[in-house]
């Protein structure tokens, strides 16, 4: 009785443990299909298990384990260095038995929120196991002869007051003058979207935030939102930034008026970095979606850790018809070019007559 009861309870315990562990242990252990191989590969990436991840790729010319890790884990404080893969959805595009193409919709959890990426992987079957063909990252081009210069010299004169006393009438320097130079409101995807451009007309840098209040037909406020990250907050003199404010779940028909309230603040700002935006052009991607592509070139001496691209699209009358943005997961090193792409709304792609790309940035180095 003593022993048999112990055996029964031990068996029950082991059985329960097996029941609890088996589903986890079984999932994605074998890369016997192209999609499973992609899933396993990203499981290794998620676990930062670079050895196993590299073992699952067919390295192309010039791909070493170090370059592979740099490619997938990021360098120089880029967004990729503070991202982790969250979700992988795969779809086999074609499979010949020896070669296959798999499209992976990747969801990254990053420091600026969820970032979605679609990547097509080519896989090769080697001895029953599928491996991902991994080519060297797109060569980051050197911008020839560009001379990075870091500016220490700036001439901004801010005069606070003419008196040291506390007397009435003495005021500190005013915030910079900014002006909203264009504005448009549209219905899009179940939201009201307010967009436009703001310029710093002053001679000193400003920190700008734009808040908008939708006023309903009855004169009451319907919703309040802000430009959040869809603006370049720090504006140097004469700098123009697009802005976009989304009001989810609202319709333009409900709105009687929009109250825009920009907030300006006089701030110190660096004149660096200067980022050039080259080869801007709109094209269709593999799925037929309109994309604005180009190259970013850092023409200064500072590394830009996280670049943020803001694109403004204009119609033939010069009106802003859309503002879209995107974060780059690579850092911009001095004199180097990095490709970027931002979405263009398909329904307005034909109306786009002109566009302008500005680059906002975050640098991790603190002054």
């Amino acid at each position, binding site marked *: 009785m003593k022993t048999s009861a112990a055996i029964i309870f031990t068996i029950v315990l082991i059985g*329960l443990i097996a029941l609890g562990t088996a589903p*986890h242990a079984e999932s994605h252990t074998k890369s016997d299909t192209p999609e499973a191989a992609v899933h396993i590969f990203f499981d290794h990436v998620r676990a930062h298990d670079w050895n196993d991840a590299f073992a699952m790729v067919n390295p192309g010319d010039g791909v070493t384990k170090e370059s592979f890790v740099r490619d997938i884990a990021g360098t120089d404080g880029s967004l990729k260095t503070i991202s982790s893969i969250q979700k992988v959805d795969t779809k086999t595009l074609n499979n010949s038995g020896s070669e296959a193409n798999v499209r992976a919709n990747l969801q*990254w959890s990053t420091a*600026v*929120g969820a970032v979605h990426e679609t990547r097509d992987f080519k896989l090769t079957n080697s001895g029953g196991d599928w491996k991902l063909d991994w080519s060297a990252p797109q060569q980051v081009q050197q911008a020839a002869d560009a001379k990075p210069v870091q500016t220490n010299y700036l001439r901004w004169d801010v005069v606070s007051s003419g008196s040291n006393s506390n007397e009435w009438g003495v005021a500190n320097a005013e915030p910079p003058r900014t002006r909203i130079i264009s504005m448009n409101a549209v219905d899009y995807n179940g939201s009201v979207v307010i967009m436009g451009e703001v310029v710093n007309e002053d001679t000193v840098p400003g920190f700008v*935030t734009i808040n908008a209040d939708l006023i309903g037909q009855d004169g009451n406020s319907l919703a309040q939102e802000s430009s959040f*990250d869809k603006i370049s*907050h720090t504006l140097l003199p004469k700098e123009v930034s697009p802005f976009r404010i989304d009001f989810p779940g609202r319709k333009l028909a409900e709105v009687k008026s929009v109250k825009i309230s920009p907030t300006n603040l006089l701030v110190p700002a660096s004149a660096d970095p200067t980022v050039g935006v080259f080869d801007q052009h709109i094209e269709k991607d593999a799925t037929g979606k309109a994309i604005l592509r180009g190259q970013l070139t850092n023409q200064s001496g500072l590394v830009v850790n996280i670049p943020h691209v803001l694109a403004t699209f204009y119609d033939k009358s010069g009106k802003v018809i859309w503002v879209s943005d995107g974060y780059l997961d690579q850092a911009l090193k001095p004199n180097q070019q990095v490709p970027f792409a931002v979405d263009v709304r398909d329904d307005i792609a034909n109306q786009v007559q002109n566009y302008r790309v500005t680059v906002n940035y975050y640098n991790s180095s603190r002054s």
Partner: protein
Amino acid sequence: MVALLAIAVHGPLLLMQLPAFAAGSQTQMFLAKHYASDWFGLWNPHWFGGFSQTTSAPLTQQVVALLSHLFGITAAYMVTQLAVVVLLSLAVYRFARVWTGARTAPIAAIGSIFLGSLALLVYREGALPATAGTALAICGASFLYGFARGNEVLSLIKAVLLLIAAACCDSMTAVYGILLFALPTLWLASADADNEEFGERRSPAATFIRGVIVLAACAVVSGFILAPFWSSVFHSSHRLLSPDETASNFLLQGSNAVRYWIVPFGFMILALPYLFLSGFAARRTRALFLAFFVALVVGLGTTTPVAKYLLGGFDNALSVELFTFWATLLALPLVAVLVLELVTRYQQRAVILVWVAAVLTFAAPLAWMTYHPSTENRFRTDYIANFLNRDNHAQFRYLTLGFGSQFSEVASRTNASTVDGIGDGPMLPEAREFGVSHLDNAKSYGSAGMEALRAVLKHANQYGLKFIFVRDRYYEPLIAFAGWRQVEAYENGNVTLWSKEDVPPARDLNTHTTLPGIERVLWGVVPLLCLILALLLMIATPERDEEVEIMALPTTGTEPIRTQEAI
């Protein structure tokens, strides 16, 4: 003597305020501080932009609040925790005496002092409510035996008061702990009912039913007292668990096996074969073993599917840890029998080895905590509190990011309100959409956490959220792109303050709910009253040892049986 030993072992550690910075203890002290300032005003404006204290069972917070008027809040917490540890050892003494006899009771009681699982809960988690609830539940269960088997009215009163007090300490204990300790005890009472060795012969079924009725009555009464709490539990929305809170599979994650199973059990793992062999074999301890087995299995977390089905929405790491704690407590009477046999057989050698094992079992969690601290690089929060408390800064709300267990510490020190919080408070609609309850730790929830943080920051103006204190630079890009500017730095730049200029002062979020007066009085008075009455009754009417018969467990010892009172 057991009580003195408990004080000798835990007293110095608590005097050093070892658990002062555990996340749980900080939360308890934060909640207790509110009771200390406004006992019946249950609306606390400092977390979640305002929340009701009824989202957490009140008793331990009320005791700490009461004692804080004498000792200050931190010392009051430590004194309460020490009292709980002492009470636990006495409860285990009573419990073991019921199950395995008076000879084993002191051994089990001493064992309870050195439990690794207890050390982890007290010193790492700061789980005062769970340990207090458990101690009261065990005590209540042993008195329930006295009533069910012996029909003693005084035992009935003590059992009822203790079980209600236990339920008012901790929700997990209220739902699972009381059943885990009380049901086997009732089974034992009914098993002993037709045995004249344990008193007058009674009907086993009637004995069991009588006990169940008492349990049900306790459940109804405590449910009535804690009605606002249960209401908030049932109306709370789905919450994601961060990886730290998730009960993981121990086979797949070895580090968690060490943390949640090996360290809490310590050398008791060596006794598992004995427990399996003799626990179910002896008729009287069969129910105890079954309860132990259930607690053991649930304590394995997602290593087995049981925890998920049994715990439902409660299947977090702390719940699993609590079940392991209960498993070790339920095993103690049986382990005490083993120790007694070993000592009888091997004399002094066994005594030395058992003591060494006990001490090492207790030391292991403390050593483990040293090498795996819950908060690395602790920092001073007084700069932050000073900033928030001056120049009308408290008229705005604030947010901390990456503060970990020191989140509550900031909240305790400042008059300002945060939109974040710990526990079952009302999440902001933006965070509720993603099921993220604790924004300070947003990144650990993955993209859901960061999206929730983005959504809340987007509406910063509506919440008066002007100040963000950042201790984890991971969050800096988001808040910089979102329009906050760094304005101050503390602790050599490890903690930075970010501010947004256009944020208006915070206004009431109109989530304030006022409980009816009767509910507030019940909440504020009855739990503490039950505890005080139960303790007074226990002190005023100590049971004589000879009233409890020695259990019929075979021991091979030849030494005379010596019983003693624990107090």
